[in-house]
């Protein structure tokens, strides 16, 4: 009886133990001088959209801090599939504001809802150009209802565009697991609660391509930095 109680206690104890997991952290930096961004002249020339700006808006393919830290890099675990918790994850939001997509780089899970808003005083069409998922093209009137998208298949940098305003782009990376992050202006990223094990970590930038590194995540997590170079 004592043995049984002991085994039962051990079982309950191990079941109550939190699953072991660590965070993957790192910094992405850019080496070299990126090409100069361009003025979005057609936006300023557009009667409705141009009125929303006092100064000329520019493209922002390379968001780099003075220290060389690179934003808008999607970092994810490569080859981890079928682990999506997208169906229960809170929806991600993509807004059309000032006749640009905000944010322009985003990552979501397969099955996760992506809500697209139109905060502009003009009509937009929300047009996806996927490689693995079905293409969608829907009109969204000013003040119109939000559009909801979900994607079943993972794919990198799925393009959203507006053909009414052809300078408007967003790129949404769809990942088949919750293990991803997008770097902020400080170039830093954190992928939370990764089960211990060996993985391939991928860092992908819209213009600079992708880099990978083999890492081992322990209970205390892992750290991996990447350096991209403009050639």
């Amino acid at each position, binding site marked *: 009886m004592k043995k049984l109680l002991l085994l039962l206690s051990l079982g309950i104890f191990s079941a109550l133990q939190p699953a072991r997991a660590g965070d993957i952290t790192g910094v992405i930096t850019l080496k070299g001088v*990126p*090409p*100069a*961004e*361009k*003025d*979005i*002249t*057609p936006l300023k020339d*557009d*009667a*409705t*959209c141009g009125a929303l700006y006092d100064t000329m808006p520019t*493209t922002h*393919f390379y968001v780099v801090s003075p220290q060389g830290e690179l934003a808008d890099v999607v970092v994810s675990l490569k080859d981890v599939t079928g682990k999506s918790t997208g169906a229960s994850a809170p929806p991600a939001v993509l807004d059309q504001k000032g006749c640009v997509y905000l944010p322009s780089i985003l990552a979501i899970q397969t099955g996760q809802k992506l809500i697209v808003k139109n905060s502009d005083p*003009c*009509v937009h*069409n929300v*047009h996806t*150009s996927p490689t693995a998922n079905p*293409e969608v*093209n*829907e*009109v969204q*009137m000013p003040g119109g209802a939000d559009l909801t998208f979900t994607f079943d298949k993972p794919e990198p940098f799925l*393009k959203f565009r*507006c*053909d*009414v*305003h*052809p*300078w408007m*782009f967003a790129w949404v990376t769809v990942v088949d697991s919750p293990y991803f992050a997008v770097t902020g202006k400080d170039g830093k990223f954190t992928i939370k609660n990764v089960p211990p094990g060996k993985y391939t970590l991928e860092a992908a930038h819209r*213009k*600079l*391509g992708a880099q990978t590194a083999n890492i081992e995540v322990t209970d205390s997590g892992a750290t991996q930095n990447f350096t991209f170079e*403009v*050639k």
Partner: protein
Amino acid sequence: MLNAVATFLLIGLGGLVTSHEAGMSVPDWPTSYGYNMFALPIKFWTGGAFFEHTHRLLASVVGFLTTILAVWLCLKEPRKWMAWLGIAAFLLVVAQGILGGMRVRLQMASLGIFHGAVAQTFLVLVCAIALFTSRWWQNSETEKQIPVPRGLRKHILYVTILIFIQLLIAATMRHQHAGLAISDFPLAHGKIWPDTSAAAIASYNAQRIEVNGENPITAFQVNLQMIHRLVAYTIFLGVAAAAFLSLKKLGGRDALAKFAFFWLALLTLQIVLGAATIWTNKAADIATLHVMVGALALLTGALWWLVAARRTRLAA
């Protein structure tokens, strides 16, 4: 004639749609934003939708004019084959309208290439009908004609076919929606023949900042633009040879020789516009002019050949 002019303008407007990357700005068809196409409120005629919507409206005008033309040819034209040409024009304009609609509804960019190719064919057909029904064509039936040597006619025909192939290459380039695959001219990425290795393509993509049409470029697109350039040089030499052969064989006063030099002038302008398209980073107006002059170059070759063939037949 009115139909031919409207068709030429329609090709220009279609060129503006693609140059402004606006082909999918109105996602529904035949309705526009859910409205009857002819009742779309003016407040929605903005940005890319302005080009796409006016393209649809002008296409409707061309469709209407072609229907009238086909009916008129069937009812009034004594030459039976002309009625068949009218029916062919009608069927082609209907097919072209459906092709344009399907490009939108099926969201198939590749259909845009066929849409562009059919547009060029339709322009040649409508202009040929205008030529055949012209007073000049019908009144000169009994005039004394000077034959055009077979070799010269074949040369013109081959160059015209090559121009059509070039327009297909150009339509394929334009419907990649990737901006300029090569951003310099006369060199290509700084070389006579650009490096298309994976590392080079990655470097081009890292360096290019596009405001519109921001798809990454591929080695295929770079090679395609190089083929477009080589075919352009070949066509230019072919047209120059045609002009000088016409001068030699027909004499400087002959209308066809003058027409051949007009063709050469068009090709010169076209090469300049091609270069300007690159130097202006594919400015929409310049790129569209390049499309329109390309259409005129095809048309000039086709009409030259038709007139030469008829002259030779009447002289025999």
